[in-house]
C-alpha cells in the first residue's frame, strides 16, 4: 500500500480560503488593532477626516455657548461603550470648559453613569491643571444633579417646571460646607425655565433620545452623541429638525476633535481662513486630538481587515464553485 492513499487529502485552495480557523481570525484582528493603537501612540498619527453636516451643527452650538451659559449633560452610557461615548464626553467637556460654559450632569439610564461622568470630569480637570488652566469647580462651574430612577416623568416635570423637577437635589457649597439646593449654585441660579438652558446634550448607547425630544425638544436645543449602532435610528430626528446636532460614534468623535483643531471660518468652511468672525472658532494650540484620534487608525485597520476577510471568503466560494462545475 502506498503512502499516497493513507495520507490526509489536501484541501482545494477554494475550501482553504473559506475555512480559516476561528482562533487565527481572532489573533489577526487582535494583532492588527493592537499594532494600530501602538503606532498611533508612538507616531501621533492624525488620520484625516471630513466632518458631516450633523457633527458641524453640534459643534457650532457647543462652541458658541456664551460664557456662563448653562448646558445640561445627560449621560446615559456605561463603560461598555466607552470607546465611542468616552471620547465624545471628553471632547464635550473640553469644549464647554474652554468656552467658560457652566454645566449640570444628570442620568436616568443607570446609576453608574454618574460615577463614570465624574471620572471624565476629573481627567479633563487634571489636563487643565497640567496646562496651567484653572480646573472646573463643583458647585461654582458645574453640578452633579445625580441619578433619576424614572427619567420620563422627571423630563415631563422639567417640561412643565424645571425648578419643581430638581428641587430636592442638593450640592455642597464649598464656601460654607453646607448642603444647599442646586438652584442656589451659580450654575442653575438663573435657570427659571428649561428654556433658559442653552443646550441639552445626551450621551447614550441606547434609544433614550426620543424620550427627551418628545418632552423638551421644543424648549431647548437637543444634541445627541450616540454609538455608531444607534446612529441610523437617530438620523431621522436630525433630518426632521427635532435634533439640532448629532455625533455619530467614533467617527463622529474624531470629527468633533477635527473641528476643535481646525474650526469653521466666517464662510462656513472647515479649516478655512476667510476673514471675519469664525462661525465656530478652533482651539488653536490646545489638546484637541485625544481618544477619538487614538482609536481612529485602529477603526480603519479593523474595517479594512473585515473587508479583506469577506473578500477572501467570497473568492474561496467562487473558486470552489468553479472547480465543482468542471
Amino acid at each position, binding site marked *: 500500500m502506498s503512502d499516497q492513499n493513507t495520507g490526509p487529502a489536501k484541501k482545494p485552495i477554494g475550501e482553504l480560503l473559506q475555512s480559516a480557523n476561528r482562533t487565527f481570525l481572532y489573533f489577526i484582528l487582535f494583532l492588527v488593532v493592537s499594532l494600530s493603537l501602538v503606532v498611533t501612540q508612538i507616531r501621533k498619527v492624525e*488620520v484625516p477626516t471630513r466632518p458631516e453636516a450633523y457633527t458641524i451643527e453640534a459643534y457650532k452650538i457647543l462652541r458658541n455657548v456664551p460664557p456662563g451659559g448653562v448646558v445640561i449633560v445627560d449621560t446615559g452610557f456605561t463603560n461598555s461603550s466607552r470607546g465611542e461615548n468616552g471620547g465624545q464626553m471628553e471632547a464635550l467637556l473640553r469644549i464647554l470648559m474652554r468656552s467658560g460654559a457652566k454645566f449640570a450632569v444628570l442620568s436616568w439610564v443607570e446609576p453608574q453613569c454618574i460615577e463614570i461622568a465624574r471620572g471624565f470630569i476629573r481627567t479633563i480637570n487634571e489636563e487643565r491643571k497640567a496646562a496651567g488652566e484653572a480646573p472646573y469647580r463643583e458647585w461654582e462651574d458645574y453640578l452633579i444633579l445625580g441619578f433619576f430612577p424614572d427619567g420620563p*416623568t422627571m423630563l415631563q416635570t422639567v417640561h412643565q417646571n424645571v425648578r419643581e423637577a430638581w428641587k430636592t437635589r442638593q450640592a455642597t457649597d464649598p464656601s460654607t460646607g453646607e448642603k444647599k439646593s442646586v*438652584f442656589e449654585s451659580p450654575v442653575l441660579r438663573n435657570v427659571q425655565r428649561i428654556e433658559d438652558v442653552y443646550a441639552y446634550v445626551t450621551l447614550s448607547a441606547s434609544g433614550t433620545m426620543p424620550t427627551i425630544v418628545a418632552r423638551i425638544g421644543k424648549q431647548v436645543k437637543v444634541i445627541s452623541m450616540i454609538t455608531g449602532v444607534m446612529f441610523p435610528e437617530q438620523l431621522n430626528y436630525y433630518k426632521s429638525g427635532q435634533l439640532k446636532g448629532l455625533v455619530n460614534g467614533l467617527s463622529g468623535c474624531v470629527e468633533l476633535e477635527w473641528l476643535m483643531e481646525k474650526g469653521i471660518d466666517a464662510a462656513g468652511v472647515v479649516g478655512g481662513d476667510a476673514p471675519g468672525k469664525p462661525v465656530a472658532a478652533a482651539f488653536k494650540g490646545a489638546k484637541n486630538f485625544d481618544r477619538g484620534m487614538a482609536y481612529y487608525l485602529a477603526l480603519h485597520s479593523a474595517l479594512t481587515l473585515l*473587508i479583506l476577510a469577506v473578500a477572501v471568503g467570497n473568492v474561496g466560494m467562487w473558486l470552489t464553485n468553479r472547480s465543482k462545475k468542471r
Partner: protein
Amino acid sequence: MIPLAQATQPLSFWQAEPGSAKMWALIVGAVVVGFVAVAALLRTPTRVRPMIVSAVTFLGGLYFVLHWLWPTAQDYSPDEVPRNAVEGFSFWLQGTLPSVTAFAQSLGAMLLGIGIYSLLSIHLGRLLKRQKDWFFSLVFTLSMASMILFGYWDWITRLTPEGAKAASETPSLFPHFAKDLLFSGLFINMDAVMFSIIAFFIFSAAYRAFRIRSTESTILLGTALIVMLGLMGGVVVSQDTLLNSLAKPGESVIVDSLRLPTIRTWIQDNLQSPSIRAMEFGLAIGGLAMALRLWLSIEKGVSH
C-alpha cells in the same frame, strides 16, 4: 414666571430635604406602608387581586393620559386662580405632577432594590446549598458586597468639605483607593472588555456568512462596503483628493456622484432613513397598542 429671588420651590408633604429627619421618617414610613400593602394584597382572595392591580394600573395610566390630552396652561403658576372647572382640573393635573414624579422616582428606586434582592436570593441560595457553579455565586456575592462597602465608605468620607478635599488631594487614602481600584481599576476595564469581545464575533461571523449567493446578498454586501468605506475618513479624503484631480467639487455631476460621501448620503437619505422611519412608525403603533393593552389590563400575565 417664578421670581428670581425665589431660589427654591417649597417642598410638598411628600418631599423632604435630603438627609433630614423628615426624609428618613418618610423612607421608613414608605417601607412600612409598602410591606403592609403587599401583605394585605397577599391576604386578599386570589380572584380579587387582579381587580386591585387592574384598578391601580388604570388610575396610574389615566393620570398621564389626561396630562397629555387635557388642555394645559402654558405658564402655569401654583398661585393662579382657575376661571372654570376645566381650568381647575388642568391646574390640579399640573400641580400634582411633581408629587406624582417624586412617587415614580421612589418606585423606580424600589425596583433597583428588588433587583438586588432577587440577585442575592438566587446567588446566596445557590451558595448555601452548594449547587452547581456555586463558586461563581460566591464571586458575585463578594464582588457586590465589597463594591457596596467601599462605595459607601468612600461616599460617607466625602460628605464633609474637609473629607472631599482630603479625598481629592490624597487619592491613596484607603477607602478612596479601594473604591477606585474596584470601580476604575477592575469594573470599568472588565465592562469594556466584555463589549469589545463582540468585535471578534462580528469579524468571524462576517467572514463565514457574508457570501455573494444571490442578488439580495450582493446588494447587501455592496451597501455594507460603501458604508464601511464611508466610515473611514482616510479613505474618504484620499478618494476626494483623487477625484479633485479630475474635477473640482461642483464642476462635474459624474465625478461628484462617484464621491463616497455622496453615495453614502444617498443611501442614507433614500434607503436607510425612510426604511427605519417606516419601522419606527410600525413600532410606535405597536407600542401604543401594547400600552393600551397594559393600561386596560387586557394583556395576559399582568393581572392574571
